[in-house]
């Protein structure tokens, strides 16, 4: 026993290092951050309050950039409005003819951005609306241009939004024209990537990318961006599609929280499957 104590005392740095690494890895393997959700809620509330205090600091560069983006968007939208109006009338007529049910539009809650965090390729917003305004964790967030992110934490007066420009993000998206579905990821930089799409699929530069109906996390048909590049490699059967987002994330000041929560039954089923797969992996490893 004395020998063991002497050994620990002699190599206390190494023993501590190993012990703390084991603790860290155990914490990582827990994975599910909701286990400390209560504490994080306090952090979100406190940071929201702090960021609100400093939100008055102007950012001239951001405003200039936003003005330019808005002017371009306005021009684009005004020409599209006419087309849309015609399309809506035509669509209504056709739906009436086919006795289709009208697609419901989700109500939205307008919110101001009071804080932004950029931490190692993960971006977050703090909004000045919270549970008192019926905002809840899991609601999608967009602005006039397109998809912004999803609410990951909410207190009475503030909510925290995980932006889609986030290293962990995976969005089930679809090409508007060909209805092709794929998984959109972000690896830093200005564009998203739609990977592992077979060469034979119909994707063209300029195609709009929307959230897919297959996604349980985001409401469907929200614009995300447009195809700017289709990368083909010799000898590879897949193509990589570069997608430029419609939203200018550097200049976000006002957003809309979509009052729509993912289907809890579907979410529970996915979670259940996820846990089952993890357990199976664990069993295989243990064997």
């Amino acid at each position, binding site marked *: 026993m004395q020998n063991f104590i002497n050994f620990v005392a002699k190599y206390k740095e190494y023993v501590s290092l190993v012990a*703390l690494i084991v*603790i*860290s890895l155990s914490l990582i393997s827990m994975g599910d*951050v909701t286990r400390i959700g209560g504490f994080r809620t306090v952090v979100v509330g406190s940071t929201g309050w702090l960021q609100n205090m400093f939100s008055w600091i102007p950012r001239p560069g951001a405003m200039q950039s936003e003005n330019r983006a808005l002017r371009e968007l306005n021009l684009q939208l005004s020409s599209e409005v006419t087309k849309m109006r015609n399309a809506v009338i035509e669509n209504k007529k056709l739906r009436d003819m086919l006795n289709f049910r009208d697609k419901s539009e989700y109500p939205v809650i307008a919110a101001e951005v009071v*804080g932004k*965090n950029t931490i190692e390729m993960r971006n977050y917003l703090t909004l000045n609306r919270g549970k008192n305004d019926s905002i809840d964790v899991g609601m999608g967030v967009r602005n006039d241009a397109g998809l912004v992110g999803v609410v990951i934490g909410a207190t009475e007066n503030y909510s925290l939004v995980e932006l889609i420009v986030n290293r962990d993000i995976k969005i089930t998206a679809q090409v508007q024209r060909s209805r092709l579905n794929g998984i959109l990821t972000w690896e830093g930089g200005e564009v998203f990537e739609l990977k592992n799409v077979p060469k034979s699929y119909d994707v063209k530069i300029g195609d709009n990318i929307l959230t897919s109906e297959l996604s349980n996390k985001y409401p469907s048909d929200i614009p995300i961006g447009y195809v700017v590049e289709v990368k083909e490699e010799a000898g590879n059967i897949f193509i990589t599609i570069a997608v430029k987002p419609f939203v200018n994330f550097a200049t976000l000041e006002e957003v809309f929280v979509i009052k729509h929560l993912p289907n809890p039954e579907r979410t529970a089923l996915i979670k259940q499957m996820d846990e089952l797969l993890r357990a199976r992996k664990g069993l295989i490893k243990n064997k």
Partner: protein
Amino acid sequence: MKIVFNLGQKNRSRGIRYIYYVIAALLLSVINILVLDFIAVGTFTPDFMLILCVWIALTEGQFVGIFAAFLCGLLFDIVSHDVIGTNALAKTVVGFVAGWFYRENKANVIIGSYRFIIIVFICALVHNLIYSFFYIKATDISLVPFFMKNGIASSLYTTVFAVLAMLFKIPRK
């Protein structure tokens, strides 16, 4: 029975230093929330907490440095909404690495010289390498290009701020 704690001058000053470290860690967390967005260059942000971890390890030694770095990492995970444990692990290793450069009663000299910059850069590289490993595990990006692009740039940016930290070096007696 009356228990009297007779703390020596050395222990008292150490205790005060520890309180300063806690305050510094909390302050850097707040700075992290409020300021980081203003000084981010693209997706690269400096890691103030890493500089504090290196500072503590160089001042207090490897043993204290490891524990301080672990706690700082845990705090950083909570504040930055990261997966709990990733920064704790990376920063624990940083505390260990920085502790190698600890020399008793030489903290002032080391922190006040170019050696501090080099140590911070080495530690930042180690930190980002470990952190990159966790990042690429969730995606299909390869480690080397990702580390070359993001790890080294972030390390350099953190090192720039280590120069500012040098200005706060402990005054010589």
